């Protein structure tokens, strides 16, 4: 081992340790904060306190927790199921039944990917308002069901789907929709797993669109409620940080259980 190598190694370890510390510290802060009084959090007390149960009590009395979690879960689950169904079907078909015209449509769709949501939100809102479905979960879910990104993701993945399987199924007399349902979906379950994570997280964490569409308290989602708590004149940070722990918990669990698919899923993902 030459000294120059050791010095370089040392620098790398220090650098990565600092980065890891800075990345993880806010999580520590969030959990510790949930056990502290708001007054202690604002003056930067970095050690656990005794206020956890008081924070839980305040949070549960301020927020209709079961309701809000039910809303978030319903939106995320429904949104995920519908998005996967519609978008995987389209991704499969774009790859399996290629025709020149459909290739043009596909290329055009990829162009649309670069159009930011903020350009669409005004007309979308006016549409939703004129259809009289504002303040419904349907309005939250509908615009994102046909996801160009997920269609693209499934098309790329379908390239790895063995065409012999499809041919064999045809010889056995299966119809095209049966091939998709009984052969393709089971074979591609890891692709579905990764896509589920991407779409579920996007739905669970979605903020701007639900903020615009959902107006009454009984329809709000977890992200909307936690966000609203912080804009109080004197926010109760102990309770709020407990709320962020609750809001982050589902995604943290998904992350640690499905870490591999999670990272693979994200690397194929768009912000």
């Amino acid at each position, binding site marked *: 081992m030459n000294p120059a190598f050791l010095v*370089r190694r040392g620098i790398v370890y220090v*650098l*990565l*340790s600092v*980065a890891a510390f800075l*990345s*993880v510290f*806010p999580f520590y802060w969030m959990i510790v904060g949930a056990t502290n009084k708001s007054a202690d*959090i*604002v*003056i*930067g007390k*970095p050690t656990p306190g005794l206020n956890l149960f008081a924070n839980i009590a305040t949070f549960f009395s301020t927020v209709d927790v079961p309701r809000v979690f039910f809303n978030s879960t319903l939106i995320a689950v429904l949104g995920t199921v519908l998005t996967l169904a*519609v*978008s995987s*079907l*389209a991704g499969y*078909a774009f790859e399996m*039944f290629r*025709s020149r015209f*459909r*290739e043009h449509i596909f290329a055009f769709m990829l162009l*649309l990917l670069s*159009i*930011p*949501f*903020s*350009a*669409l*939100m*005004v*007309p979308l*809102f*006016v*549409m939703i308002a004129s259809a009289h479905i504002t303040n419904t979960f349907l309005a939250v879910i*509908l*615009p994102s*069901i*046909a996801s*160009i990104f997920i269609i693209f993701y499934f*098309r*790329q993945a379908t390239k790895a789907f063995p065409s012999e399987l499809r041919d064999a199924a045809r010889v056995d007399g299966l119809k*095209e929709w049966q091939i*998709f349902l009984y052969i393709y979906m089971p074979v591609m379950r890891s692709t579905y797993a990764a896509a589920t994570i991407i779409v579920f997280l996007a739905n669970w*964490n979605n*903020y*701007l669109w639900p903020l*615009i569409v959902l107006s009454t308290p009984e329809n709000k989602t977890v*992200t909307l409620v*936690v*966000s609203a708590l912080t*804009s109080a004149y004197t926010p109760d940070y102990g309770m*709020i*940080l407990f709320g*962020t722990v609750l809001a*982050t918990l589902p995604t*943290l669990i998904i992350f640690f259980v499905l870490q591999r698919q999670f990272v693979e899923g*994200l*690397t194929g993902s768009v*912000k």
Partner: protein
Amino acid sequence: MAQTQTEGAVAPRWRFAAPSHLGRGERISGWLFIAPALILLGIFMIYPIIWSLWMSVQVGKGMNFSFGGWANIIRLTKDPVFLRALSNTCIFFVVQVPIMIFLALVFANALNDNTLRFRALFRTAIFLPCVTSLIAYSTLFKSMFATDGVVNKGLQLLHIISDPIPWLQDPFWAKVLIIIAITWRWTGYNMVFYLAALQNIDRSIYEAARIDVVPAWARFTNITIPMLKPVILFTTIISTIGTLQLFDEVYNLTNGTGGPSDSTLTIALYIYNLTFKFMPSFGYSATVSWVIVVIVGILSAIQFFIARDRRPSA
């Protein structure tokens, strides 16, 4: 060289060649399978795009509008709040994206070393911020960066600053806070892309460079960066779109104001305010939103051009 160049690329490739012999059943299935997606995209994407293009030449408040021609574009150039939002967004973009991409590259490069210990631990830790929702982490940062909060306390303890920094009250520091927050959230995300791409680079190139005693820094700039060019381009464009649409973080850190005194107001937040906070002027907010589309288009073209221009002759 040209051969390995393409191996480092993970940029999506797809084929547009179309086989001509599809049976009748296949042709019908082809349309039926994509029909739900196409119908939904038509309603919730194409129609809003056309609507918004048409709206962007309308003037008026609420649902009373009339054709205004260039009026909205002229109003843009004279609207101080819009110009403020535009310049803020550009500052966030110009400062934040390069810092983040650079950090992500450095971390990915360091973690790509098989002899390094605790690699998985470091990788997981740096990636962890991506798990949080935009709202959760904005809320966290708001409490951490309070004037007497833990960050100022820590910096004072390390004798980096003597007086607490007014993160949320000072126009300059508010911008810095937003940049720190986004960088925290997205660096690990970009790093994962680079790590994935680095795995595809042929190890023998590095071995050859090491035998030729190429220093580590030169290996990084002359081998790693050029090899990762397609991924860097991809992540830069994605980050560009993300930064230009910046909304959640600013809205939450500043209680929806974009303050202090509009110093963190972004274009997306301004569009939101124009539409949902003030008396709605749909036409004008549509025009503002097309500014984002145009900027994304121009920046993507520039980034493609730079990436293409510097490619070593193969």
